[in-house]
């Protein structure tokens, strides 16, 4: 569990980082931010990057704040930054609720929000947040900047629309309306483990009926995604258990579950059903 040989680079500006990545991507140059996934993978020699481009010295990438109706999260913002709400209103609260489920305290001190999105583990809580809330990813390369919408961003297990020479420099998440309700539930074997299934839901209430529902499911398929069929079952309905049960049932039916050591398809559907219903109940409280 000693990594293979690599060359280490520590750029001090975004431009320099992008230049380095542009020239080293072909030699398997990789960005190092928090290192909480990449470094263990290197220790197992499952990854043997020829070059590591450490972006931790680039001060601007550590910035977080709201601008133009969106929360902007720089590439070096740690999970721990979200322990307390980073922005007033439901989005800040949602993220501080979700972050408690990400691994363990020491890992949250090092690992980064954008790193999770670049890594794109199917069970990543932040990926579920991004896709459910319609985040935008800002990708930088020597060819310039481009914005990737969340629905176009995830392309498979641990694969994204980012090109090898692109740095995920920032993620923007639209702020939530002040009366947005949210619920988040995940199931894992132990506290801090990768979720076997999780659900993130948001909606608003208009005279007791549900408007603008979003139902996101993570951990169950190759990528987290919204479940439009379940959302349709919520629109205009009263926020009560029968509604939630029906939507949860639909979510459980329409997912195409991964199968692994922890869960076969039928068990993952059970978990999707339970997590969706509980997230909806939590949102209604």
């Amino acid at each position, binding site marked *: 569990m000693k990594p293979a040989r690599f060359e280490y680079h520590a750029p001090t500006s975004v431009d320099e980082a992008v230049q380095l990545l542009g020239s080293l991507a072909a030699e398997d140059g990789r960005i190092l931010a928090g290192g909480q996934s990449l470094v263990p993978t290197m220790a197992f020699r499952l990854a043997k990057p020829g070059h590591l481009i450490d972006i931790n010295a680039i001060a601007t990438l550590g910035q977080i704040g709201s601008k133009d109706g969106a929360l902007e999260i720089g590439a070096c913002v740690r999970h721990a930054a979200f322990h307390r709400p980073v922005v007033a209103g439901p989005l800040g609260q949602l993220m501080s609720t979700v972050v408690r489920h990400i691994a363990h305290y020491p890992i949250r001190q090092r690992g980064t929000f954008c790193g999770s999105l670049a890594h794109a583990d199917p069970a990543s809580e932040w990926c579920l947040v991004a896709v459910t809330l319609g985040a935008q990813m800002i990708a930088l390369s020597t060819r310039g900047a481009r914005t990737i919408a969340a629905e176009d961003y995830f392309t498979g297990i641990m694969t994204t629309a980012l090109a090898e020479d692109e740095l995920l420099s920032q993620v923007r998440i639209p702020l939530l309306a002040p009366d947005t309700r949210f619920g988040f539930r995940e199931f894992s074997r132990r506290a801090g483990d990768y979720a076997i299934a999780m659900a993130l839901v948001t909606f608003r209430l208009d005279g007791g009926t549900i408007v603008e529902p979003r139902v996101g499911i993570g951990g169950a398929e190759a990528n987290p995604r919204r479940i439009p069929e379940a959302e349709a079952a919520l629109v205009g309905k009263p926020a009560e258990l029968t509604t939630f049960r029906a939507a949860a049932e639909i979510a459980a039916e329409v997912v195409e579950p991964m199968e692994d050591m*922890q869960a076969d398809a039928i068990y993952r559907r059970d978990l999707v059903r339970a997590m969706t219903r509980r997230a909806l109940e939590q949102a209604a409280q």
Partner: protein
Amino acid sequence: MSGKLIGRSVTRLEDPPLLTGAGRFAADVSFPHQLHMRIVRSSYAHARLLAINTKQARALPGVYAVWTAGDVAHVPPIDFRLTRVDGLEHYRQHVLATDRLRYVGEPVAAVFADDPYVAEDAADLVEVDAEELTPLLRADQEPGEFAPARRTEPAIVHKEYGDVDAAFRAAHTVITLDLAIGRHSGVPLETRGAIARHDRARDVLELHGAAKVPHWNRDQIARMLGRAPASVQLYEGHVGGGFGIRGELYPEDLLVCVAALAFGRPVKWIEDRREHLIAANHSRQQTHHVHAAVDAAGRILAIDNAFFHDQGAYVRTHAATVPDLAAAMLPGPYRVPAYRAVGHIRLTNKTPCGTYRAPGRFESTFVRERVLDAIAAQLKIDPIEVRRRNLIGASEMPFRRPLDTLGTEIVLDSGDYARLLDRTLKAIQWDGVRQQLEARRRAGEFVGAGIALFVEKSGLGPFDQVHVTVDTSGAVEVVTGAASVGQGVETVIAQICGEVLGVNYTKIRVVHGQTDRIAHGLGAFASRVTVMTGEATRIAASKVRAKAIETAAELLQAPADALDIVDGRVVRAGVAVGPSIALGDIARALAPTANPRPREPGLSAEGWFHANHMTYPYGVHVAVVAIDRDTGAVGVERYLVAYDIGRAVNPMLVEGQIVGGFVQGLGGALFEEFLYDERGEPICVTFADYLMPSAREAPRTEVLITEDAPSPLNALGVKGAGEGGANAVGAALAAAIDDAIGRPGAVTQLPITPRRLRELLRES
């Protein structure tokens, strides 16, 4: 503090260095000019080894050598330490694979390099050419071929007494259960490590990083390498957890020794975590087909216990220990008039197995207590009542069970099992718990409670030897061949020595695990140290005390029987002021140069303790659980361990042993399992996949330590504390989960994962 020390929860002598960063673990040991060893491991579960190409690896700058089996052809396979059974010897492991690869992780080649990174780079360059064979992954399917003319069932453990068949013919009811225990193991925080150095000036081969059984390993290494035992010395540093698996003699230990001799340079090997999870001993995996004959009142007439023990790819140092214990200990605290155990030792293409905390008992307690619960359910008798009807009575002690294990006859030395059951039920307020659970169940919750009883064993002999010496400063040194795996040996031995000798226990240095300090030692396993080393210490300290008082009597001109030792000074017993003499001064008076010359110089003595029988502590576990019916998750709301250990030398350390053991038992019951895919590839090779419970999963453990039944086999009455916390966790949780879901006998397999439990819930 001196005076009364035994029975007090004094703080640990071991802690200051550990808590201040002064500890020295295997990885902290380094020598100038050392080479680093990296093992190339088989990526095949089963294959014919055709060729190994080391050319590229050898060519890498910084690589000193690359070895394959031919380079260590003179080293015999690693022998058995315990429970040797004829026929097993053909299934021992060579230090490097010869012609077949039998598990993923098997050492195939060893790379030696100037630094560990280069060693790992070079290991990646070693090419193994092999022809893959079909792996055998289940112990309960038809045996296959281990080697030409050698089947994968090397031996059967058979233990029997009474007329089993007649009992079944006469039975009112026959219970039949098929049960399975999952493959898991002890996972110490510190992985294994071995650092060998050949001191050519003295021609002594040193091995650092030893643990558990340094003397036995020293003797074996000497024998295997054709050296005199005195020319091989093992040194134990701090050890980050043992649990049965750490400290046994493994291929890597031999490889560093052979290499250090061959290269004339020290050789260091530190196991990484992935290696640990595939290369160090696994344990526990057994399937049992058990039948019980019972009468109309639920009394057991006979048990017929057929089981398959998944030994993995080779038979290691424990030989038949685990299946032998599983067979012998299954009857537990119950009167079982007739009994038959047939244990099939089966080899599979998985990591070889050995002992893990409560070996054979975690498994057999699960089986036995499932049987008791099944009797209760089938005959509609309360589970507590059915146990009471079968318990061996206090008046029957000592109770001779016509079985043997670990080379000793089973004679349950002392115990009042019914009394401990009563005390347990009172402590947890069983009736109140039942009522609360009933109310919650009516409200729709899936909650339940379960109970399991067991008998442990401890204090395995046959001997222990201790030297106690007081130096001229009054400091006391106790030298023992026991070992410390973190359990508190130094503290406990110092407490015993301190009380007997009249010395503050913090003034006592306990030396352990150093083969060059004492000729004999059996180390630390089988919950033996407090019993065996403790009694040898008491004997040695008593002799030193007598000698000190005898000498002081002359110096103080007082009759010996009027003297006592208090806080390291010999004083007149019961007299507050008056003449006294420090033990250090007595030691000076006993120096070989003293005038007058002492009859026998030195304030020191040797203590020997021999024992042909083990001591048998016993306990009760109670679990209260809540099931999440949607997910199958088990929440352990309460857990109580009651344990009678005869006499607790340090109750705080006993409690620590019990709580730690419980959490490991919880792992085996709900979380931990080494899984393999259909090609025999291990799936659980990281802590993300091998799920040990953390503080969040473990409930606060309630501990009831009792001293109702001191052992008659040693003067202090002590029994061992190491394994009672783990023993019955699978059994108690299985019962509680059955109760919670209202389906007696539903749990037949450990670990009880949420997926499996959800399947059970879906059925109902």
